[in-house]
């Protein structure tokens, strides 16, 4: 199945939950736990969006999201737990296309993803 959204998070449980939520909303999603895997997925499947977790055991979300976006041209958004204003501002400064807060109810996640995708469709990446 061609992925519409790629998820990069080193927690397999979080990945499984998010993938099921996104698929339920009609977004084909694939998850991976490492940067090389995410890079390969993005190059092969050309998703519409890649979601990167901020806090990773190896590396950090800003660097990896920015790297993926720069190398593959796929818009990247950050997944954060606290949504501090400084986090949002730095994500914007790094050129990322959005910030997705979690954990949140499924509907909120779906709405956030839909909003980001709509903005990308209207304004471009």
């Amino acid at each position: 199945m061609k992925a519409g959204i790629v998820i990069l998070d080193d927690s397999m449980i979080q990945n499984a939950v998010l993938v099921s939520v996104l698929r339920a909303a009609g977004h084909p999603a694939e998850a991976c736990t490492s940067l090389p895997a995410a890079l390969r997925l993005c190059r092969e499947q050309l998703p519409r969006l890649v979601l990167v977790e901020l806090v990773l055991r190896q590396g950090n979300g800003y660097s990896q999201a920015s790297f993926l976006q720069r190398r593959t041209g796929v818009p990247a958004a950050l997944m954060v737990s606290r949504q501090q204003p400084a986090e949002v501002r730095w994500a914007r400064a790094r050129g990322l296309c959005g910030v997705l807060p979690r954990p949140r109810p499924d509907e909120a996640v779906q709405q956030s993803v839909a909003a980001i995708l709509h903005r990308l469709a209207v304004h471009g990446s």
Partner: protein
Amino acid sequence: MKLRHYGLPSVDVVRAGLQGELVQAEKMCRDWSATGNRQSVSALLKVLGGLALLGRLYRLSRLEAVTRQALRLLCDRPDGQRREVVAQCLRVFLYWNGALEPGRSALAYLGPLRSRVLEELRELDGEASPTDMARQYLALRDVLAGRKGKQDAVPTAARLCTILLVEESARCRPDEPLVVDVALRLDPLLAEVEACRNSGTPPRQALYAVVRELSVLYAAARLRCIDVPIPALRQALWLLFLLLRHHVGDWPADSLSVLMRQLLAVQYRLRPMPRGAAPDIRPVMRHTGCFLRTWRSAVAFSPTGGQEIPEPINEARIRDELRLDLQVLMRGVSAGGSGRDPAAVCSSLSKLHLNLHSLGRLTMAWWADSLQHAMLALLQSGTRGGPVWQSHLSGFRMRILPLPGRCAGLENGTEPLLAAVEEEAWRMTAVAVGPRTTGSQAGVAESAGCPGAGIPVIDQLSGGMNLLPDPALFFQRLTACESAHERGELIRAVRNELFVLEKGARLLGVPRIEALATVLATVYSGLDGDGGIPGDSGPDRSLLVALQRGHAGLLYRLDQAAAWQTVSRPQPVIEFLYRFMERRQKGPSGTGLAPPQRCLAINRRLQSLLQSLWTDAITKERRTLILTLMRDQARLLREMSEEVVNNGQP
């Protein structure tokens, strides 16, 4: 007519006189509470204004504060809160009744004296002037207040008249409007303040005179004797009090700049535009000229007394650049109020705003930004008349309020809320530009930038940088620059960001980022030192590689900090940049990576860094000792490395 000689009445007589007044005031208060009769409010305002002035003159600070609070509430007159306001007023009268105790002799004597003067003033015929009356009244007042023998500067007749009429609530001449040329009185005082600042002496005396002047105006405004914007007066007074209370020795340039700004704003707004008049850009230009003069003198202020500071980001150099911009801007402002000049001044103000912002002088940056917007508003509304100007003016006022919460409550433009927010904003402004300390608190306040210290340093860093978060774009622009001037501008911009980052990292306690930012800034400053990047050929490849490595290392660590992770050691990148700089300065040195040679290189860098530090950061004795120890260490390291080379050991 001569003033009758007033003997000192007994305390009982005094108490009775004042109590009579207070009883009347209480009656008016209850009447207003019961019937909502607005005429009672005017009378109450006058009584409270007089009481407040008494409290200030005789340093009854608690009474004064309570009275002013009631005055403010009553002045705003929220009909929905009439009961609370009445209760507050009655409480004030109760306090004043309680103040009439034996021992409050000065207050006691003033009451009946004022009543007598009032009677005299009511009997004045058309030819008599109240000026002499006022002068004698003031002289007696000074004596009663215990300032016997002290000769104050003789005030002008107009001022005397004003003081008396303000204090007596103008009951004697109810039909004669009180015409007060407040701007003329403030002008010489402000000029004196400016002169003191230029000569480097604390303008304490002049500021006290300004306080007295503004206090009179404030009381007069509260008593509805003159038509001036009360919030502006209140703000200026509050700021003055705060500065005079906290500054004893040196006067930080920023504090005085903020104060001058506020005083000039008060002075400007004391000349209300007549209704229906076309907007006039000349006052704004004059205001801009004052701002520029103020900032020019602040730019000339050097904390080290003019000593050259050879640090990577030389603030003196940035000030020199600003001075050049200011000179151009001053020429534009002084050229007149024609249509083209304001536009040129607008664009220059915009640039000045950015420069000030990057320097961390955000109070002045706000001012420049506000002036620019005011000019833009004038340029846009010049042909459309008064109402549009008024709407732009309210927008302009909102822009000078730095509080983040200004939007929600101010859109309906209610005066009490606006006044309260303005007062809070300026209170926080005064705190933010308070005494400079070497600790982090003042730095936080200053670096927090937005006056009011409402925006944390971390938020400013995360949202305030454009070039450092996107090195690819920066290098693309750097290589695409067509002239040395353009390249220099870009490099200056990135150096400014590094400077701000260095300060912010220091305040946030992230030394690894601070150190790397400092070294990277050193690389950039070295570009200017040795002739910079050649004008036509652009940056050479080795320089680009070094800068890209530095930027990438810094950005990675910024990402780590933003993600709340432990920042990696910056030593590899720092070592790389230092070796690049040393190669660039001295040519290929053949320096290997053996530990003794690396230690020697680090030792030389430390020596160079210590020699460039300010003498007041490290005392002379300590500095000498440290350098001695380091030279000894360098000698040992050299001997070790020679021994290694001679013995052929790695």
